[in-house]
C-alpha cells in the first residue's frame, strides 16, 4: 500500500516528451512532475495532448522521445506490457469495460502487480453500486457504474500511480459526486493520481496542482490554492 510518507519525492517525472501517431507529431516537449501521494490534473482544450500524454506514459503511443521516469525507472524503450507491472494503473477515457466478460471477470482481469492492492470487499465499500452485480455482463452496467468498475479493477492490482482519463465525462452530477468521493478516498489511502479533466469544477475539488496543456506541451502549472487568483488566466487557456 502506498503510505504517503514520502510526499516530497517525485514519483513520475516527464521531461521534454515528444510523441507521434504515425507521421503526426502530437506531443511537443511535455515536461511535468508528480510527487508521491499527489493528485495532479492535466487541463486543456480538446486536442491539447492530455490523453496522448497518458498513452505515452503507458507505451500505447509507441513512438516517443524524451524521458518518462517512474520512481527513477525510464519507461521509454521498455516493453509495453512491463510498464503497468511497475505499478501504474490506467483507466482509459472510453473506460474499456469488456462486453464479453462479466462484471466479476472485468474486476479481476488486470493481474496483481504489487502487494498491498485493495481487496474486493474494500472495493465494494468504495463503490457499493458494484456489489451483487458480479455475473452481469460488463457493458450492461450504466455509464457511471462502468466508470466505477474501470477504476475499481485497477485498485486490486496494487498499482500506486493511477492515470484517470476523464472519469466524469458524460456522467450525471450525482454520479460525478460519487466518483469525487472515491477519488478523495483513494488519495487519503496514499494513491498518487494523474487526472485528465475537462470538468474544471470537479478537478478543483480534488486536485493539489493543475498542469495546463496547449498544443502538445505544458504551458502553465497552477497549485490548487492559487486557483482563484489565476481564474482569468485559466479562462483564457481553456477558452471557457
Amino acid at each position, binding site marked *: 500500500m502506498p503510505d504517503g510518507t514520502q510526499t516530497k519525492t517525485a514519483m513520475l517525472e516527464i521531461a521534454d516528451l515528444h510523441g507521434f501517431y504515425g507521421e503526426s507529431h502530437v506531443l511537443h516537449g511535455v515536461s511535468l512532475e508528480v510527487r508521491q501521494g499527489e493528485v495532479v490534473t492535466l487541463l486543456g482544450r480538446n486536442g491539447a495532448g492530455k490523453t496522448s500524454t497518458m498513452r505515452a506514459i503507458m507505451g500505447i503511443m509507441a513512438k516517443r522521445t524524451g524521458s518518462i521516469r517512474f520512481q527513477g525507472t525510464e519507461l521509454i524503450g521498455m516493453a509495453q506490457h512491463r510498464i503497468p507491472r511497475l505499478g501504474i494503473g490506467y483507466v482509459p477515457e472510453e473506460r474499456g469495460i469488456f462486453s464479453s*466478460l462479466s462484471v466479476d471477470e472485468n474486476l479481476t482481469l488486470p493481474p496483481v502487480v504489487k502487494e498491498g492492492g485493495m481487496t474486493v470487499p474494500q472495493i465494494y465499500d468504495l463503490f457499493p453500486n458494484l456489489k451483487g452485480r458480479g455475473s452481469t455482463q460488463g457493458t450492461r452496467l450504466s455509464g457511471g457504474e462502468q466508470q466505477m468498475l474501470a477504476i475499481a479493477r485497477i485498485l486490486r492490482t496494487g498499482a500506486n500511480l493511477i492515470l484517470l482519463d476523464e472519469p466524469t465525462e458524460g456522467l450525471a452530477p450525482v454520479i460525478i459526486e460519487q466518483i469525487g468521493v472515491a477519488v478523495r478516498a483513494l488519495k487519503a489511502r496514499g494513491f498518487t493520481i494523474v487526472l485528465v479533466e475537462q470538468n474544471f469544477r470537479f478537478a478543483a475539488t480534488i486536485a493539489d496542482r493543475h498542469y495546463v496543456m496547449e498544443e502538445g506541451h505544458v504551458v502553465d502549472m497552477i497549485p490548487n490554492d492559487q486557483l482563484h487568483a489565476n481564474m482569468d488566466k485559466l479562462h483564457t487557456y481553456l477558452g471557457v
Partner: protein
Amino acid sequence: MSHLFGIPPQALFGQLLLGLINGSFYALLSLGLAVIFGMLNVVNMAHGALYMVGAFVAWLLLTYAGVGYWGALVLAPLAVGLIGLALERTMLRRLYKVDHLYGLLLTFGLALIVEGAFRHQYGVSGQPYPIPDALKGGTNLGFMYLPTYRGWVVVASLLVCLGTWYAIERTKLGAYLRAATENPTLVQAFGINVPVMVSLTYGFGVALAGLAGVLAAPIYQVSPLMGSNLIIVVFAVVVIGGMGSILGAIVTGLGLGLLEGLTKVFYPEASNIVVFVIMAVVLMLKPAGLFGRER
C-alpha cells in the same frame, strides 16, 4: 420398425453416424478457425493443410519411428502447434496492421506450398493408417452396428470441443483471451504480454487441426489433399456459425454434419450442396451468422 419414412433404419442410422463423424471434424476444425479469427482477425486458409500435416506426422511417426496412435495423438498436435508458432512469429505477425485479406492470401499461399510439397513427396494416392488395437471392432446396438473407432472419434472430439469452450468461457486464461480479442491495447496496458498470447492462440488453433488430422488418419486415408477436400465445408460452417464464435463453431459443425447425413438418406443428390445452401440462407437472414455478433 423395419422402415422409417420408407428408409431402412440401418441406412438412416448409418448415415447419421457418418454425419456425426464428419460433424466432429467440422467442429474441431471450425473451432480452431474461430479461435484464430477471433484473436488474430486472420482467416486461416492454411488450416486444412495443417490438418493434413497432423495426419502425416502420425503416419510418419508410425512408419519411420514406430510411434503408434496414442503417441501420435500427443506428438502430432504438438508438432503442428510448433509449426503454427513459427508461422505466426515469422510471417503472420507482419500482417496484423493491414487488411485481413493479406492474412488470407498468405495462409492460402502457404496451404498451396505445403500441399504441393507433400504431393510431390508422397503422391496423391493415400497412405493407409491402421486403427489402434484397443479401438478395433464394434458393438451391435440393435438398430445399427457401431464401429468402436468411430464412436471414439465422436466422443474424443466432443470432449476436446467442450474442454476448449470451457477454457475460453469459464477460466481466467479464457477471460484474458476474450478481453484481448475485444481490446488488445487495453489488455496490454494491464501488463499482459498480448503478442505472446496471440502466438500461443494461433499455435493452439492449428494444434486442434493437427489433432483432427490424427483422429481422421484411420478413417480416411492419409493423403496430401485430405485437407483441401474438407476445408471448404469447414469455412462454410464457420460462416454459418458466426465468425469467431466458439459455441457457434461447435454447434454448427456437429449440426451440419448430421444434416448432411440426413440429406444423404432422403435426397442424396443434394448432400454435397446442402451446407452451402444453408450458408446462403443464413447470410441473407443473419449476416453475422447464427451465433455471431455484429462487429
